[in-house]
């Protein structure tokens, strides 16, 4: 029980520390430009005066968080396997333009129509990411290089498709879009749910895709922690050689993981597409794939963490507006987001080492006595050496964990 508390505490330590450090640095910067940091933070957390404004602010935050969450999840699945999928950007852009075109081209009854769009998006994302996996296992191409390169190809291809064969907007229009998805292919908003809960009616609709994102999050969490596949995936991520030694097909895992990561990446554009835009155009939100990397880092690649990270980023994003009304430069938000990502990398590393050390201590002392689960965060300093020796018996483990 207390072991669980400590594990959770340790896993929270990194991100919380990072956010704290980022806030301190941001406060310093705000003070340096001659503004009051406390006032700035107060403005950022001010959601509006009237109930409908407050609900609207929350809807804006949630609507922004949904795509960020999915992007973070797509990156995280690959992360857990030790793969760096930088290609989420290209995967979701290509998936969205094709899904938008497919959705506009057919007429099906409601749920089926949405399902078709979702399946097309996931399939395109998976295939595009699958190229990265296949290249890695057959030719040994680093997934970092190939996924970056495929981003350029995907963006160019998406642009070609949009301006060429899939163009649905009239010739003179400034914004080039695909044809609009008919009513049956759209995901209804959850505003009915909000008003049913006794909240004021917001100005814009809460994305119904929020529910899909939650389901995807739960599925990924279960897949990662409760299935054989998830175990293999995490084991391969921690130590490829150890996993191979215990019978995991590492090559197959690379391809499968990239397919899953890409399939989730394919969903990233859909909340906007099916919830408010109804077509893919030149002004469609870009860059979510890259933000997803930051979100996955901040969330330590765990679905719950990613959800919190996505909410935090979405919250900060919205805060840029009230800051501008208060005549405080909205770059404050960019500074906070940037320092969080920077700090989280450092803090994660520190937290990981602490966790490793405490695990070693636990391992070393588990034999002699069962009273290991002390709430004390600082056990006697004699343990590390013992822990080290215990672990040298497992080939590959030490190396994998360090890498």
């Amino acid at each position, binding site marked *: 029980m207390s072991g669980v508390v400590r594990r959770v505490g340790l896993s929270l330590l990194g991100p919380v520390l990072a956010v704290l450090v980022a806030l301190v640095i941001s406060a310093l910067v705000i003070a340096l430009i001659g503004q009051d940091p406390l006032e700035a933070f107060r403005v950022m957390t001010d959601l509006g005066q009237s109930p409908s404004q407050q609900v609207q602010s929350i809807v804006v935050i949630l609507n922004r968080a949904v795509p960020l969450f999915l992007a973070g999840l797509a990156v995280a699945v690959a992360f857990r396997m030790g793969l760096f999928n930088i290609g989420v950007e290209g995967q979701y852009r290509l998936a969205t333009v094709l899904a938008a075109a497919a959705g506009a081209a057919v007429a099906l009854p409601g749920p089926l129509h949405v399902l078709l769009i979702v399946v097309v998006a996931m399939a395109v994302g998976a295939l595009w990411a699958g190229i990265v996996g296949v290249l890695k296992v057959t030719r040994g191409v680093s997934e970092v290089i190939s996924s970056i390169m495929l981003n350029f190809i995907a963006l160019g291809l998406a*642009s070609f498709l949009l301006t060429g064969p899939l163009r649905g907007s009239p010739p003179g229009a400034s914004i080039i879009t695909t044809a609009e998805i008919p009513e049956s292919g759209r995901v209804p908003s959850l505003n009915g749910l909000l008003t049913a809960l006794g909240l004021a009616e917001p100005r814009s609709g809460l994305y119904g895709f929020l529910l899909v994102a939650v389901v995807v999050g739960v599925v990924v969490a279960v897949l990662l922690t409760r299935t054989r596949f998830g175990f293999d995936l995490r084991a391969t991520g921690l130590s490829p050689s150890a996993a191979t030694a215990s019978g995991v097909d590492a090559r197959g895992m690379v391809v499968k993981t990239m397919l899953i990561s890409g399939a989730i990446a394919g969903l990233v554009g859909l909340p906007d597409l099916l919830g408010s835009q109804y077509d893919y155009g030149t*002004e469609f939100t870009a860059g979510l794939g890259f933000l997803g990397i930051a979100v996955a880092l901040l969330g330590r690649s765990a679905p719950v963490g990613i959800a919190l990270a996505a909410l935090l980023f979405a919250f900060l994003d919205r805060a840029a507006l009230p800051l501008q009304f208060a005549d405080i430069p909205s770059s404050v938000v960019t500074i906070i987001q940037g320092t969080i990502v920077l700090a989280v990398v450092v803090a994660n590393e520190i937290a990981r080492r602490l966790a490793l050390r405490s695990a070693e201590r636990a391992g070393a002392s588990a034999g002699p006595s069962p009273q290991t689960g002390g709430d004390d965060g600082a056990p006697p300093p004699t343990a590390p050496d013992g822990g080290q020796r215990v672990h040298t018996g497992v080939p590959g483990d030490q190396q994998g964990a360090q890498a």
Partner: protein
Amino acid sequence: MKAAALLLAGSMALAACASDEPTGSSGGGEGGGGSATEELRVGLAYDTGGRGDRSFNDSAYTGAAAAVDALGGELQELSPNDDASNRADLLVQLAEQGFDPVIAVGFNYDDVIAEVAPQFPETTFAQVDGSNADGAKGDNVTGLIFAEEEGSFLAGVAAALKSESGHIGFVGGVQSPLIEKFEAGYVAGAQTVNPQITIDRQYISPAGDFSGFNDPARGQIVAQGMYDAGADIVYHAAGGSGIGVFQAAAGSGNRAIGVDSDQYLTVSDPALQAVIMTSMLKRVDNAVEQFINDYAEGNVQGATDVLNDLSTEGIGLATSGGFIDDIQDDIEQYSQQIIDGTITVPTTVE
């Protein structure tokens, strides 16, 4: 502690809303719009890049600030987030807080303004670079549009007259209908002077990828390729990437044509200044200032376009530096022919 507060802010506020519900705070009264406001409160919503882009957005600010300075009142500017996914939110916030008129900068607001404006029938909206001649965006939206092709035509004339190699270039920022207007005018102008002229045309980024407006390094590479191929004058319609075009020109001893503002005056480096033969002026500042003045005088009807072209001097060709003084007569002539309608400048590339 603060971190926790931040993380929990959403859920806490949600709870707060639920409990606030019956009180119905008085703040909502402001949302109705700025009818009968004695003071002018102008809202300005920028596009990608926001304030400080030394281009389009800044030009809109200059105009709005000039108008507000002269008339008195308040100017509230809002920049979107990095990926500009919150454009709708910017307009809603400004309108909700009672700013009137609300001016959206950039054609990317096309869909968004059509969605938001009808929700605030009491507020007057304007969109720079977005047409609302048919009133499809709402009766309260005025389009501030520009005949970029006319100025680009003159830029093409100047380039063709000044080119010694009979080979010129065009660098577009992002392949889009708007920038293609620049290209179409430029090509038409150059070919009118010299039907045999070779024109290299290239865009920095494809449609949908707006990095091409803010990527000097790629601007330089693209322009360098044209100079290497024999072009001696390159016209850019690439926003912030234009600096790269000037650098390529300076590096290869050739010349370039700037865009939007008089770039001879706005670049800080004298080495780059020397290569800027002229600039195609798109006076977003004048258009915005004029619109605010019209609004203050009650002359804005909505559901119309204000066209800024050569005849209104909303479009023109800069003469700073004196590089095109010798061909000024020709340019005047062509300019007059366009105003008279003797020359019709195409807006799309065939």
